């Protein structure tokens, strides 16, 4: 992706082919994904999609099985392991975690078949692994990815990429030098709702996007139960600035990635403010953040996240002059919805003439109330997936193909660096312009 706009993702238990009563089977899901991903507009900007669907649909055969190592079997790691069990041709041969309870959970998910490690370097030393998946705390991503690529492994790493922009750049460079795949866990890139949204945007269905509003609101302390006080920082690493950039790298990076994707650009600058205004529990990262990202053409992403109110949940509102897309809700709204049939308009008109109050003086201002348009579905089929399952399918398929595909890593890079620059802007209380040295060549 360039800043000239040259290029452009709930847990699912519904994709098992052995569950005929489910709304959508794995096959249905792949077919739906292929249908959306195969459109000319998307295949041009997301070249990996069509190839991935073709490969993901292949039947399993012993000759092309992919041997995987898994580093970090915490909650997210175990979720991904669960998804990997459903991917044909994927064998998790080794798992690693330095927290015994998590390692045990991971082992159970592999049916006791995987060899266990507590040091990831021992896992990387194995020659029989094609690829590794990393789902560790953020501060460990950089070194693990660099080491894994150096060990000749294809890598899937959970988002965000790293804690510093310079580290993200080094990771991209290391990927290029190794020629191996480096895929980052931005599952919305594989979410049908988001693919449909991007297709609509590229088709001009909502006109020119002039503003993006995104938010992620929760009402919980984001803490995990700690069996012993000395494990506080290890388990609740998200709350400490030594290990995490808080809301920016854990939540915002997903949504900034969507904004970058929709706008086909990365931000020129960012300003923001964050604070701890509710959870005064010893945490070091902000419990609420508010930022404004400026994109080329004077387009803005207005972002906020908080952990003390969940009324509005999460959404990315892609606002164009002809319509609005809310991909998380699977909805789009037109600025000027098709008029009702003439006869309905006539009846409404008669009704208003009879029942409406007659104003004595004309109003000088009419309240611009929100549109009551209920909108339309982006995708008709109910697919309870956030894209993580297809993301795993895609990674295994790409590893089997042995080819790094263009475009994907750029999306992750710009999303993470955008989030990190936003974090920096809040810490330093200033507007930060995108550094030239952080533009990918």
């Amino acid at each position, binding site marked *: 992706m360039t800043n000239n706009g040259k290029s452009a993702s709930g847990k699912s238990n519904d994709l098992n082919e052995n569950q005929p009563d489910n709304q959508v089977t794995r096959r249905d899901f792949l077919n739906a994904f292929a249908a959306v991903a195969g459109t000319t507009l998307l295949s041009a900007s997301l070249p990996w999609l069509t190839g991935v669907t073709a490969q993901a649909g292949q039947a399993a055969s012993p000759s092309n099985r992919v041997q995987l190592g898994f580093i970090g079997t915490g909650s997210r790691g175990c979720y991904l392991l669960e998804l990997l069990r459903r991917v044909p041709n994927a064998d998790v041969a080794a798992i690693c975690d330095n927290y015994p309870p998590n390692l045990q959970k991971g082992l159970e998910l592999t049916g006791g078949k995987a060899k266990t490690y507590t040091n990831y370097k021992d896992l990387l030393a194995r020659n029989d692994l094609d690829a590794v998946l990393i789902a560790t705390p953020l501060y460990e991503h950089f070194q693990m990815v660099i080491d894994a690529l150096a060990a000749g492994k294809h890598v899937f790493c959970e988002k965000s990429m790293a804690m510093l922009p310079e580290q993200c750049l080094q990771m991209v460079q290391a990927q290029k030098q190794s020629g191996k795949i480096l895929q980052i866990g931005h599952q919305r890139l594989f979410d049908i709702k988001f693919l449909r949204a991007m297709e609509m945007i590229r088709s001009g269905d909502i006109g020119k996007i002039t503003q993006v509003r995104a938010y992620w609101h929760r009402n919980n302390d984001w803490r995990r139960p700690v069996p012993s006080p000395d494990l506080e920082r290890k388990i609740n690493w998200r709350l400490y600035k030594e290990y995490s950039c808080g809301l920016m790298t854990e939540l915002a990076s997903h949504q900034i990635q969507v904004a970058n994707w929709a706008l086909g650009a990365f931000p020129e600058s960012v300003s923001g403010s964050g604070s701890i205004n509710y959870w005064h529990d010893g945490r070091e990262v902000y419990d609420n953040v508010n930022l404004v990202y400026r994109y080329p053409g004077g387009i803005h992403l207005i972002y906020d996240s908080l952990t003390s109110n969940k009324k509005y949940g999460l959404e990315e509102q892609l606002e164009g002059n002809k319509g609005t897309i809310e991909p998380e809700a699977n909805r789009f709204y037109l600025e000027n919805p098709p008029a009702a049939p*003439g*006869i309905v308009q*006539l009846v409404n008109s008669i009704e208003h003439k009879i029942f409406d109050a007659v104003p004595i003086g004309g109003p000088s201002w009419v309240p611009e109330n929100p549109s009551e348009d209920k909108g339309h579905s982006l995708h008709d089929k109910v697919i309870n997936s956030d894209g993580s399952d297809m993301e795993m399918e895609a990674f295994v398929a790409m590893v089997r193909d042995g080819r790094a595909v263009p475009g994907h890593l750029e999306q992750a890079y710009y999303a993470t660096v955008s989030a990190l620059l936003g974090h920096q802007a809040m810490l330093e209380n200033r507007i930060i312009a995108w550094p030239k040295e952080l533009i990918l060549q």
Partner: protein
Amino acid sequence: MNDTVITAKRKRTEWIILLACFIVANMLNIYSIIQYKSSWTELYRSMFYILLITFFLYFVMLFFRLVFWGIQIAIRRIKRTR
């Protein structure tokens, strides 16, 4: 309870009234298409609304006719008692 006899003439009259209501509803549809510059395909695409209006008009007319018959019967009874 006595049997109720609906004569052929009554049936024909009711069908004619219903048909008249249907024609009026369609005329309203044509008027609204012109007035609101909507598509002529609404002549058949809005058939649900046309039928709805047809029956609405029919029952409005039925209401007034029943009121009219009620008054007529009341007047006849008053005349007989005199």
